[in-house]
């Protein structure tokens, strides 16, 4: 009886040892050497696996970052500069700090401003709606209101406002991963610089139609009149395809364009004081008047010598 037990223990233990040794040898033979820094970098990442950086997830980002010669093509929009500093420390690289970004919805076609021209009863998806027709309003560029962007956001930063029928971005939660930008079939959402203390100016419209038909479709639309681009002294506003666009790298947040816009399509957010449109308008008009007078004077001066010359030749 005892011998049987001893034999059993001995055989099982021996077998165990043998298998353990085999496993050890196999593991040694086929060992995959992974850079230990990959794990360190991955730990420093936020771990949301959102794909906002352009890689499949945080591990893929870490893997690529470790192999890359510098961090120029690697930036985690969710973790921002802090995370990137940690990653750079681990890898011994230098990083260029990026200004924090935020998703901005560039449509203000609220239910009041943009009358509905038809009724949509198809699948509740912007993607499908855009493939079927221009949308249930007169504007073929604006928000379709089915909330594809809300569904795409992994951070709960987007929600639909039932009053306006438009998506709203929660700036605290938005990580600027860009998932909503990709989800929007009308390309309304843009990642813009968050700005100092969150202050920023943007054109809240993407309608490329000509003025009269835009005006008919939506009261809040950019009609492409070009007053803003003429007002801007920082060369930050481009008027292309009947719609204005403010370059956030050049904008100095003077709010002149916002005051001058006839349809209120330019929005300024997070400013400490409400805008005093009349004061700014008066200031701008004064400046423009002076500029016109100066130009006229210059033209006269340029003409005068010619006139004198003419008179001389006539005489």
């Amino acid at each position, binding site marked *: 009886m005892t011998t049987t037990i001893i034999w059993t223990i001995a055989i099982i233990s021996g077998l165990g040892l043998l298998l353990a040794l085999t496993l050890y040898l196999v593991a040694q033979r086929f060992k995959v050497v992974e850079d230990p820094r990959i794990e360190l970098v991955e730990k420093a990442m936020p771990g949301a696996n959102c794909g906002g950086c352009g890689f499949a997830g945080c591990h893929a980002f870490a893997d690529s970052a470790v192999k890359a010669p510098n961090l120029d093509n690697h930036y985690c929009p969710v973790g921002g500069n802090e995370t990137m500093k940690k990653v750079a420390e681990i890898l011994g690289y230098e990083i260029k700090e990026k200004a924090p970004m935020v998703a901005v919805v560039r449509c203000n076609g609220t239910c009041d401003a943009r009358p509905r021209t038809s009724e949509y009863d198809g699948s509740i*998806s912007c993607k*499908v709606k855009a493939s079927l027709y221009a949308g249930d309003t007169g504007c*073929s560029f604006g928000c379709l209101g089915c909330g594809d962007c809300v569904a795409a956001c992994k951070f709960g930063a987007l929600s639909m406002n039932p009053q306006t029928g438009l998506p709203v971005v929660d700036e605290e939660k938005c990580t600027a991963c860009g998932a909503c930008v990709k989800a929007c079939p009308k390309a309304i959402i843009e990642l813009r610089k968050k700005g100092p203390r969150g202050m920023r100016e943007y054109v809240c419209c993407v309608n490329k139609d000509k003025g009269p038909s835009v005006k008919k479709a939506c009261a809040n639309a950019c009609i492409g009149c070009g007053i803003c681009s003429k007002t801007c002294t920082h060369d930050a506003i481009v008027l292309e395809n009947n719609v204005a666009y403010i370059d956030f790298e050049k904008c100095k947040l003077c709010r002149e364009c916002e005051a001058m816009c006839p349809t209120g399509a330019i929005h300024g957010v997070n400013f400490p004081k409400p805008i005093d449109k009349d004061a700014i308008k008066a200031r701008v008009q004064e400046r423009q008047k002076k500029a016109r007078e100066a130009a006229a004077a210059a033209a006269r001066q340029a003409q005068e010598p010619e006139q004198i010359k003419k008179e001389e030749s006539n005489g």
Partner: protein
Amino acid sequence: MARRTFSIGGVHPADSKISRGCKLEYLPIPPTVYIALSQHIGAPAKPVVTVGDKVKVGQVLAEPGGFMSAYIHSSVSGTVKSIGPRKDLSGNNQMVVEIAVEGDEWMENIDRSDTLVTDLPEDPKAIIEKIKLGGVVGLGGATFPTHVKLSPPPGKTCEMLIINGCECEPYLTSDFRTLLEKGEQVVIGTALIKKALGVAKATIAIEDNKLEAIEHINKVVDSLKSKGPEYSGIEVLSLMKKYPEGGEKQLIDAVMHRQVKSGGLPIDVGAVVDNVCTALAVYEAVQKNKPLIDNSVTVTGECFPKQANLIVRVGTPLNYVIDYLGGVPEAAAKVISGGPMMGKAIANLEAATMKGTGGLLFLTREQTKRMPESNCIRCGKCADACPMGLEPFLLNRLSKAGDMDALEANAVQDCIMCGCCLYSCPAGIPLLDTISQARGQVMGIMRARAAAAKAAAEAAKAAAEAANGSTGSPTVK
């Protein structure tokens, strides 16, 4: 004898051809027409007129913008007011030529008499050239340029021409009226296409809910047999009424018992399919020099008081057509361009008709009400109904997940958007919406991939040639 039809799928919606008794009628010319530059599959046409030009009926407004493109002619006489974007029936911008109508002056070479011209041109190439100059496109719905269809790629031969007179969509009756009232022209057009293709056999396929048309065309074919050898070999075939019989691939299956493979064209199985109205347009373009400037449009619906089959000039605003017949009825909730199965709901009644516009259908709220969507119960009705042998329930799920690779593997690109799946779904799932969206996206990906492959092949070829050149020729310094 068993009634012939296609082998898989299909549904039997109610016929509702309430306008079948209404004779073809010419709509008065509207004060302004808007002629779109992209009325066909392929590249938009390039305008050759400028603002302020005086044009006559049948004058060329735009030339083909590529191989796969078509001529566009003025459907009225008058002055070109503008060339620019205008909202089409789905509300999207499209380039149109706006013409203010003055009188009705036609180009001199157009034969406007009613006399039948039965002598066909000798040269098949001359027929195709005249079809091209006439701007004829397929009027069955796809608006495929006809001259391209009639020039099969080298190595492929056509064995049979099928003229599609099925008109399987409920409500629509314009093809039926064309067969009854312009049967002779259709048969001569068939003979012309047959000659252009160089085939011996042509079949005019008509569904058996249009017995008058079958009888009439049989008589016409018999009477024209004496006119020349080109008129022999044309036969009329009665098919069982089933939707979507008029689909190109379904029709080939029903008539020839051959299946077109995924991604293939009818010519791969030796068939060319053209619509009845296309045959009429071919007759007019070749024998009468009259380009495609008007087409027949059925205006119908239970709630619409005045049913009509109208011959409408291309570019006529839709609301002009509707006002002529008494305006939009109170009860109408939805206006559809085309039939109820494949037609497109119109978001903008100011849009103008195009070459391919076949019907204007008014439906009440009751008729268009969608069932509330509930969960898929895996009954498989959609898969049974699909005439292309696809699995709509699966494609719907994949489309929602956005899995483009799996969608392509499950052949979403083969979908003909007939709507049988949506029609048969007991859970009210908007299958067609999601599948057609995915189909568009997958086809875009496939096109981009093909273009990239072509560019890469060309670059490799150029590189190889450059390498050969540098080794073959001595360098001079």
